C-alpha cells in the first residue's frame, strides 16, 4: 500500500471540518437541551391543563322541578275558580295567557287529558278524579303503562343515592324531571368536551 493511499479511502478522517459546522452542531445541542429543560413539566400536547368545569358533571336533571302546579309563581286556583264549572272553549289550544304552553304530545292533544277541568290545581284521573302534583307519574301511567312499570322497577328513569336501601335513602326522579309534559321528547343537549388526543411518549399522531 502506498504511504497515503488509505487517506483517500477514508473520506471522513480526511475531510476538513469547518468551524461553522462545529458552531452549528453545538448550537443544536444547546437548543435541544433547552427544549428538554423547558418542556419537563408540559404535557404531551404542550397546552395548559384541562379544566373540568362543574357543569360537565352537574347531576341536576334536564328540567327544574317545582313543588306544586303553578305558572309564573301563581297557583292555578288563583285564577281558575272551581265553582265556575268545566270550560267550554276548545280544549286543544292554549289561550293567550298560557302562550308558553305548546302541545307536542302526538295524539294526546287535549288539555283535559291531563289537567283536571274543574280543579285546575290537580291532574285528571280517569272518571274526573284528582291526581296531586307530586304523584304526576300516576298521570303518565294512564297512557304509558309499560314505561311506568319500568320506572317502578328502576329500569326507566333514574334512581339516585343508595342502591342498598338498608344503607341510605334512595331517590327517584319523577317523569317530568326529564320530560316536558307538553312536548315530551327528550331534548338534545350540549356534549361535554371530547378527550384531548393523548400522545404516548415516542408515538406520533
Amino acid at each position: 500500500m502506498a504511504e497515503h493511499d488509505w487517506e483517500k479511502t477514508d473520506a471522513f478522517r480526511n475531510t476538513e471540518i469547518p468551524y461553522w459546522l462545529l458552531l452549528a452542531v453545538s448550537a443544536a445541542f444547546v437548543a435541544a437541551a433547552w427544549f428538554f429543560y423547558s418542556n419537563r413539566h408540559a404535557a404531551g400536547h404542550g397546552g395548559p391543563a384541562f379544566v373540568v368545569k362543574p357543569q360537565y358533571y352537574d347531576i341536576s336533571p334536564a328540567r327544574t322541578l317545582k313543588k306544586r302546579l303553578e305558572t309564573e309563581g301563581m297557583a292555578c286556583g288563583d285564577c281558575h275558580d272551581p265553582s265556575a264549572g268545566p270550560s267550554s272553549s276548545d280544549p286543544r289550544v292554549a289561550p293567550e295567557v298560557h302562550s308558553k304552553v305548546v302541545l307536542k304530545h302526538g295524539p294526546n292533544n287535549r288539555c283535559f287529558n291531563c289537567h283536571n277541568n274543574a280543579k285546575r290545581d290537580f291532574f285528571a284521573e280517569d272518571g274526573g278524579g284528582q291526581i296531586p302534583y307530586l304523584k304526576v307519574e300516576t298521570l303518565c301511567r294512564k297512557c304509558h303503562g309499560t314505561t311506568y312499570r319500568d320506572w317502578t322497577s328502576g329500569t326507566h328513569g333514574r334512581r339516585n343515592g343508595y342502591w342498598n336501601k338498608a344503607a341510605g335513602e334512595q331517590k327517584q326522579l319523577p317523569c317530568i324531571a326529564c320530560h316536558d309534559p307538553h312536548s315530551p321528547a327528550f331534548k338534545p343537549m350540549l356534549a361535554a368536551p371530547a378527550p384531548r388526543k393523548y400522545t404516548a411518549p415516542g408515538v406520533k399522531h
Partner: protein
Amino acid sequence: MADEKDQHDSPYFHPKPYGSGVTRRQFLAVAAAGAAAAAAAALSPLKDLTQIPTLRQFLQKHYTELTPEEKKEILGRISAEVREKYGVTPHLTAQPPLDGVQFAYALNMGRCIGCRKCVYACVNENNQSRDPQIHYISVLEMEKGAVNVETSNTDYEGQVPKKGHYYMPVQCHHCEKPPCTKVCPVKATWREPDGIVVVDYNWCIGCRYCAAACPYHARRFNFKEPYLPKEDLNPEMGYLSNRPRQVGVMEKCTFCLHRTRAGKYPACLEVCPTGSRKFGNLLDPDSEIAAIIRDKRVFILKQERGTIPRFYYFTDV
C-alpha cells in the same frame, strides 16, 4: 500529552496539516461535551423525582395478605402522603367486599345520547390526572344500523344526539374471566369476591401487559406524573379505587368501589341525564339490574372473547 506524540507517529493517525478548521478530535470533544449537557438536561426531571419508594413501601405485603393492623398502618401512611401533597386530610378507607353481593352494571343503548357527563363525573370522583387527561369511560359514536366499534368516533362535539347516530359508552367490564388479571406477572390486579376487578397501585410495576390483554381498551396508564389541582381532589377515597396514583401505574374503572361498597350508586350513574345507566346487586331479585336481566334484551360486547363481563348493554323491549 504523551500519547499524542505516539499517535502522531502511528500510521492510523494523520494530523491535519492545514492551519484552518478543526481536527476531528477537537470536533468530537466539543460534540461530546454538548451531548453530555443535553443528556443532563434531558435527565433533569429526575431531580424532581419524589416517588422513590420508602423501604416500608418497598417491603409492603400483597394487599390480600395484609392483616387489619397492617392495612390500618398503610392507610395512615398514604393519608399522610396525600395531606402533604394536597393539603387536605382524606377519608381513606379499605372497605372489604360485601357478603351476598355481586355487582353488575347495565347500560341502555337506546337512551344514551352521548353527552359525556358520565366521563367527567367519573374524573371528578376518581381523582384522575387532568394533564395528561385520563378518562375511564370512552363514549363511542356509531352510525345507526350496526355495532361497529372499529369505525366508531370519540371526538364528536356540540349538540347531541347527532342525527343517524347512537352512542355506546365503554369502560371496564369487570369480567368474570378477566384476561387482564391473568397476564399480570406480579398479581397487582385481581378480581374481588363481589365481582370488582381492582388494581393495587403500590404493587403495579407498570408493564402494561393488562392493557394489552383487555379487549375493551378499558385500562389507562400513567405515562407521566398525574396532575390534579389541589382544589379538585376528592377526599372521599378508597385504597383500591380513587386514592391518588403515581407515574408508571395502571388504573381503570372500579365501579366507584369506595361508594358502591358503602351502598351508594357509582358517580357515572348519578349524573346520567337520560337514566341510561343502571347498577346494582345481581343477587337481589328486586334490584333494577335483576329486572333488566329478566325483562330486557341484553347483549354483551365481544361476547365471543369469553370474558363473561359484568357490564351489559340493553335495549327496551
